[in-house]
């Protein structure tokens, strides 16, 4: 995995490692959610909605100078925390870096059972959607090069 992504992940793991108690971990996750780059209301559209979660999650991406930037929101604060973790890991990365990333780190932060890839929390869907954005930008760029 790219070093920068690994660094982001390690940083998150460290932050969580500071807490033993699940309540503190969740409080941190919820706090993190508050700092997520918030998607603007006009982008809370059906097409930006991620399906497969119990709560609604909107995810938007833009491409700038070869790098991808995400914004998101959710009506559930824990879900918002989860998506904020992913955004912290991926923001400012290149499409290729995102596409190649391995996401087992979720296991390492000690919220494993909750953040496991089942349908209810939509983690899988979020990651899939982020990778789809990355793929789309990559394809677009290549098409641009050819022109």
């Amino acid at each position, binding site marked *: 995995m790219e070093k920068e992504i690994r660094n982001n992940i390690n940083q998150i793991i460290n932050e969580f490692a500071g807490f033993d108690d*699940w*309540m503190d971990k*969740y*409080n941190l996750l*919820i706090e993190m959610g508050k700092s997520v780059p918030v998607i603007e209301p006009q982008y809370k559209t059906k097409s930006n909605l991620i399906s497969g*979660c*119990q*709560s*609604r999650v909107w995810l938007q991406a833009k491409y700038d100078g070869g790098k991808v930037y995400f914004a998101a929101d959710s*009506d*559930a*604060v*824990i*879900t918002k925390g989860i998506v904020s973790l992913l955004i912290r890991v991926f923001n400012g990365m290149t499409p290729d870096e995102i596409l190649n990333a391995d996401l087992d780190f979720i296991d390492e932060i000690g919220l494993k*059972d*909750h953040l496991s890839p089942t349908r*209810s*929390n939509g983690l899988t869907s979020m990651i899939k959607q982020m990778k789809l954005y990355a793929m789309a930008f990559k394809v677009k760029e290549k098409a641009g090069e050819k022109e």
Partner: protein
Amino acid sequence: MPFDINKIRKHFPILEEKINNNSLIYFDNAATSQKPLQVIERIIDYYKKENCNIHRGVHTLSQKATRAFEETRVKVKEFINAESSHEVVFTKGTTESINLVANSLGEKLLQEGDEVLVSAMEHHSNLVPWQMVCKKKKAHMKVIPFNDKGEIILEVFKPLLNSRTKILALSHISNALGTINPVKEMIAMAHEKDIPVLIDGAQAAAHIEIDVQALDCDFYCFSGHKMYAPMGSGVLFGKQEFLEMMEPYQGGGEMVDTVTFEETTYNELPFKFEAGTPNVESILGMGAAIDFVREYDLHEIRKHEEELLKYGTEALSRIEGLKIYGTAKEKSGIISFLLDGIHPYDAGTILDQLGIEVRTGHHCAQPVMDRYLIPGTVRVSFAIYNTMKEIDKLVGGLDTVKKMLG
């Protein structure tokens, strides 16, 4: 047997489990119930001593298993007070039972422009199969509304019954709201216009008494896994006259009498509707579950769950900002609620950390959520083994939820 909750709990090994270092409090019974040792041991015995394919086998294993299987059919017949055991068809669950009827009866009865009547509180399993057959047949689906308390509005129901109505499909108990519907009355009203009625009893079995003859319903469906039986067992009760006029739903295996390439004749009831190798394990397990329930008498179980409902409703109502959805006069042991400003997913996640397993979301009844304009609810649903003390812990847990998220 006297109703001793501590003894009852001992029959359910899973209740000893720890969830996130807390004792498991299982409040997700409307989704699926836990299994008593009697049922688990029946399965073990079956696979260690009796397992084989039934019906046509002449060997001892097969004869014994066939007998046990057919004895269970009689047990189910008694459990729901059907007239005859060949009105009891084994399926894999409520959803399959309803699909069978929607398909085979719908095929027979529905013409273009006809109507299928359902209530606005149906589980998707009693909605989507009818939508599918309506689409195929160019028939329409009509919906009986319910009021804010979650009670069907009988004055609106009555005029919905008309000459185009070909089937009424209705839940006995709503899984999202807990409402016990006045099915007996509604069946009588439908029968006045000769409309056959299917009752979805998924939430009723092992919670309230089922008497298909007293109800006079034409079909009654339920799942084993929600009544202490193994997964993969289900029942479709159908009145003989209807089962006889219906074509089989699935083909293959024991449901035929003779087969040639030109013509196939079907077996008699109920086998006509039981294609493929039956799930003997699961059906014998259902027999053990019925025995278990009978040991305590359904009235005792009902009384216990009513007490839990009353205690739980009062306790939850005292919590500030908590709103209960479903406050019908006749209710089963199910409480759906929301905490002001807190998403049910967040609440469920925190409760789970405390070992309290509740269900959150739309409970496969999206139209109910749409009716109240909410994304979903937190649902607690009771079974024979739940206690007041567990409800106290839930109240404490909701306090934590509010502190963390409020």
